[in-house]
């Protein structure tokens, strides 16, 4: 290997690492607040990417129907709870609260997409489609289990992932799509050939991480989310509804998924089931980082990206094996060095 190839691999690794960092941060965020290991995070990315690709051609993305299905599920469940309390007025109101935004968004997408208003509008519409799926998914799959163990939540998470992948096949089809880059053009720095899109990946990731740091450090709602993660009972005692924290965390995870999709969809072809492998690499990074700290997760994500880039050069057939196997020594080391801590302390 010469210097140029090494530089190229480093660049590749950093770009991939930046994407994995976004996924890892979303996983850490959701786990800290709700104790859910969010396997469907990858689905947020693929569904957003495939929706962008569909809208680029003026086609209505299948995600519209998924949004309506999830909203209906949430409406039925909320109304069911209210009906068990024998308050039909509250049931109707809760159903409306769940359905109205989804219907409004679906209508906007159905009307605006065929007009082909350009990338910026498409990104906004895509965010409007995918971000609410986070809270709806939380309502349907996880809120009824909010007090269950991490293992039960993980099983629900796997279930949600399988269901979403299957729906993805129905809604988006088996074909893969790639979108045109947000930033076109490229330039050369020394021996390196840098595309605008790859600079955007790194820049957007840094901006998002800085934004998250500000959100958790400065805003009351951000502090409330952090507080729910530190001490769930303490959070309830100051009146922070656990359910609200869960919905916000899931909405943020879905929003991070949309950003990841805008960044990654022009670089790689996405299929309905690509989310799992992408998500798994974010998961490896989050685990190596200890599922607790954002900076550690970001550093681990960069390491995973670099490891992937270099192993694809030296042993391309084993690239995934090497990345996923790297979790084993880390877990071994962690189980030997760290003391077990209780879930609730």
């Amino acid at each position, binding site marked *: 290997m010469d210097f140029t190839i090494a530089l190229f691999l480093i660049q590749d690794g950093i770009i991939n690492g930046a994407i994995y960092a976004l996924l890892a941060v979303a996983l850490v965020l959701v786990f800290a607040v709700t104790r859910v290991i969010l396997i469907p995070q990858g689905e947020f990315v693929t569904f957003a990417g495939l929706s962008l690709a569909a809208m680029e051609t003026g086609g209505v993305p299948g995600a519209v129907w998924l949004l309506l299905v999830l909203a209906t599920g949430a409406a039925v469940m909320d109304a069911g709870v209210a009906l068990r*309390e024998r308050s039909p007025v509250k049931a109707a109101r809760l159903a409306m609260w769940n359905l109205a935004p989804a219907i409004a968004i679906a209508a906007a997408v159905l009307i605006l997409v065929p007009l082909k208003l350009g990338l910026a509008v498409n990104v906004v519409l895509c965010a409007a489609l995918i971000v609410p799926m986070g809270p709806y998914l939380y309502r349907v799959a996880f809120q009824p289990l909010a007090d269950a163990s991490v293992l039960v939540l993980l099983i629900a998470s796997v279930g949600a992932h399988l269901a979403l992948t299957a729906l993805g096949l129905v809604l988006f089809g088996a074909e893969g799509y790639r979108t045109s880059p947000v930033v076109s053009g490229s330039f050369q720095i020394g021996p390196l050939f840098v595309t605008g899109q790859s600079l955007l990946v790194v820049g957007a990731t840094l901006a998002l991480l800085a934004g998250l740091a500000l959100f958790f450090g400065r805003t*009351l709602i951000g502090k409330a989310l952090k507080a729910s993660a*530190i001490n769930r*009972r303490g*959070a309830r*005692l*100051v*009146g922070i509804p656990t359910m609200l924290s869960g919905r916000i965390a899931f909405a943020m995870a879905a929003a991070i998924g949309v950003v990841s999709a805008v960044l990654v969809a022009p670089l790689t072809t996405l299929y309905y089931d690509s989310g799992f492998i992408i998500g798994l690499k974010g998961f490896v990074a989050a685990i190596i980082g200890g599922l607790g700290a954002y900076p550690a997760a970001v550093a681990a994500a960069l390491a995973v990206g670099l490891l992937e880039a270099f192993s694809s050069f030296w042993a391309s057939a084993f690239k995934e094996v090497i990345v996923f196997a790297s979790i084993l020594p880390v877990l071994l080391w962690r189980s030997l060095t760290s003391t077990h801590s209780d879930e609730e302390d």
Partner: protein
Amino acid sequence: MSALLEVGDLSVNYGRVEAVRAVSLTVQSGEIATVIGANGAGKTSLLAAIMGLLPSRGRVVFDGQDLVRVPAEERVAMGISLVPEQRDLFGTMSVADNLALGAFRRGRAEIPARLERVYALFPRLEERHRQEAGTLSGGERQMLAMGRALMAKPRLLMLDEPSLGLAPLIVRDILQTVSELRDEGVSILLVEQNARAALRIADHGYVMELGAATMRGPAAELAADPRVAEIYLGAAQGMS
């Protein structure tokens, strides 16, 4: 005076174990009511059930409203705050952030005024406002837990063993603050193992034994009762 909190036949089960058995008690508006009793008598479970943190059977009526279906978070918004025995602080956040979150249901606009009030009660918290809650001493942690609860401007403040593990001088200060709060109109439900100290500041008292409320009455009468003295002495021996 009218009843701010009415608890009727409240029971709490952990599996087959009945931690609280058909307890009834009342907190009048503007008074300190205390529940005393030995370790394991069910005092903590009683407070957790009133707060809505534990499932329970029976009646909990606050200011005329039945709380059966009201979750703990909404009880906070209605004006009930609990300072739990474990304090449940946000350890890696600053003192100021812990306090600000105490006013979560009041909104950002009310934070400065509430903060000023809490800092006036506990000047030590102002000195340490940048420090992480997890690095505070035991007494300071208790002050922070109380301060955080007061940020919500509660009408009923429930305190679970505020004297636990604290030096006698700090206990005196904290109980002094509790009586000041009562004089300002905050109603207080105080759970204590330190029965003598609790009965000294309380208006009414209840004795809990093995999950049931066995005695009740004005605090001064309870303090003079020989059976209470016996329980109290037992508690004192347990603590030494």
